[in-house]
């Protein structure tokens, strides 16, 4: 039988606050075990959680950017279960009254736009980490590091609106881009700052009744999401074809084999017995607060793309590359504000700047060449002080030394030669050296013109103004 896949996604984004959601401990990644803990995040008896206001700000930001309505009143609830990485025996989360509801994102797959519903976004704390560390003498025991416990998360729950792995990827990429643009999550999948669980089920094509779903966990790259969903589609189709029933269960994705496997013995785990957390009072968000957050929102990727395309007239390719991250877009725009030729700036940012940074393994925010310096360089080309070719050499030098372009041009004597007398001398020299080629050219072999230009440029060490060279060379050869 032919089946239609139905996919819903739950994304956990770790927020980039300085401190945890309910205490003042640091959220820094990679610190030594249990060094960032206190009675609250260790779950010591009597310790009381107090909500980090920035988490609420960030949740409102995420809600507004995903077209959600912001709940005027939301509360925290305890989700009860036992696991060694959860010191209190419950996770503080939100249940029936989350902060954001009923949003959506529009995705595009193969040129078709589709709206994916967002059921809810809620605030919660992360658990600690179970580590199978190589500590001598501990035998079969496991180790627990609670640095991550109580780190703020936003869980974004989609409607089961996606009908192919590609739609799931498009939705995830869009959400990933938005949280990074908003500056609320660093989006690092490997470090677990952006984690995805996928609910996957099959139904016969044409049916409107969803099948039983499996929840896939432990997927930490966009590529793995696709793999995990595709594997799950095959697995479930096989079961259904054989007349079997898909069991509702949690399955772990194994990146080594590209398969999913059942997490046994968790049948009762979904009985979380939620109830309102009496330690945390309700969160009331009024319109003034929402307006204040709305005003602080940056331009979102879709709006930026539309503007780059319509107002700046950039080709689609440039628009996609430049808006891939907010930081790159800002670098481009800052340069553009000082040198208002969009396509020229775009070429440089996508070309030399990106190439140099990639070679160096650096992010755009770490670029040794600032937008102001890049604009200075482009002005030198525009004024004719240096040629476009020399500009690349100057750029490399700027990147290496951090010096200003004028300084480098002066130091290395790279000023473009536009003086006709000087260029004429070089041309005469080249033509005298190549009598055979000159004769061939004059007998009609026009293609040799490029050869002469190259020779002249080479003899001038790239400093001759190419326009002047062209003009003079043409005259001389015809003469």
């Amino acid at each position: 039988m032919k089946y239609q896949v139905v996919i819903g996604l739950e994304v956990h984004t770790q927020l980039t606050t300085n401190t945890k959601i309910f205490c003042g401990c640091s959220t820094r990644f990679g610190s030594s075990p249990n060094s960032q803990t206190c009675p609250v995040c260790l779950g010591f008896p009597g310790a009381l959680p107090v909500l980090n206001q920035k988490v609420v700000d960030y949740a409102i930001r995420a809600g507004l950017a995903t077209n959600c309505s912001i709940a005027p009143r939301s509360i925290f609830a305890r989700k009860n279960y036992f696991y060694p990485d959860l010191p209190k025996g419950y996770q503080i989360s939100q249940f029936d009254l989350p902060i954001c509801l009923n949003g959506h994102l529009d995705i595009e797959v193969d040129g078709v736009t589709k709206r994916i519903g967002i059921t809810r976004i809620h605030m919660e704390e992360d658990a600690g980490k179970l580590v199978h560390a190589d500590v001598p003498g501990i035998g079969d025991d496991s180790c627990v590091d609670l640095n991550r416990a109580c780190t703020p998360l936003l869980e974004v729950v989609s409607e089961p609106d996606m009908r192919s792995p590609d739609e799931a990827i498009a939705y995830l990429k869009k959400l990933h881009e938005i949280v990074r643009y908003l500056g609320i999550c660093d989006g690092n999948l490997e470090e677990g700052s952006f984690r995805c669980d996928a609910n996957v089920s099959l139904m016969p094509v044409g049916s409107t009744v969803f099948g039983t779903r499996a929840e896939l966990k432990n997927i930490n790259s966009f590529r793995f999401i696709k793999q995990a969903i595709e594997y799950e589609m095959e697995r479930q189709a096989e079961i259904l074809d054989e007349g079997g029933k898909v069991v509702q269960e949690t399955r772990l994705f194994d990146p080594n084999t590209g398969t999913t496997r059942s997490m046994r013995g968790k049948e009762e785990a979904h009985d979380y017995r939620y109830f309102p957390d009496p330690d945390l009072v309700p969160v009331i968000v009024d319109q003034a607060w929402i307006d204040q957050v709305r005003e602080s929102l940056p331009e979102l990727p879709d709006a930026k793309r539309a503007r780059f395309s319509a107002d700046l007239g950039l080709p689609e390719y440039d628009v996609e590359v430049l808006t891939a991250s907010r930081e790159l877009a800002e670098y481009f725009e800052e340069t553009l504000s000082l040198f208002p030729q969009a396509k020229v700036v775009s070429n440089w940012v996508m070309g030399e700047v990106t190439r140099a940074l990639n070679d160096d393994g650096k992010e755009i925010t770490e670029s040794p060449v600032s937008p102001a310096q890049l604009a200075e360089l482009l002005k030198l080309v525009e004024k004719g002080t240096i040629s476009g070719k020399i500009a690349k050499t100057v750029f490399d030098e700027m990147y290496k030394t951090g010096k200003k372009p004028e300084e480098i041009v002066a130091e290395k004597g790279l000023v473009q030669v536009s003086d006709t007398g000087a260029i004429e001398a070089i041309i005469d020299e080249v033509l005298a050296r190549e009598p055979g080629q000159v004769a061939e050219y004059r007998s009609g072999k026009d293609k040799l013109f490029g050869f002469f230009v190259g020779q002249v440029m080479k003899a001038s060490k790239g400093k001759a103004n190419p326009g002047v060279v062209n003009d003079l060379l043409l005259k001389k050869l015809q003469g």
Partner: protein
Amino acid sequence: MKITRAEVEHVARLARLELSESELDTFTVQMDGILAYVDKLNTLNTDGIVPTSHAVPMENAFREDTLKDSIGVENAVANAPKHAESFFRVPKVIE
């Protein structure tokens, strides 16, 4: 009956409580009595009343996103039954 013996058993298992057969009987009767008592609330008309989530009339208790000193690894693991170097040490969980 407000609660069955099987439900009591289930709740006990979720709370990692091991109950003897006689305890199960006793607690089923007791919990049933408690639930029947609380059930009296259902005789009240609560139309239009927002469910009470908290007993104190407070809202929006926040803290600033400012770092505070943590208590240090030694203090963190001091009361743990077992620890290994700076980790808490727990029996292996089988998945």
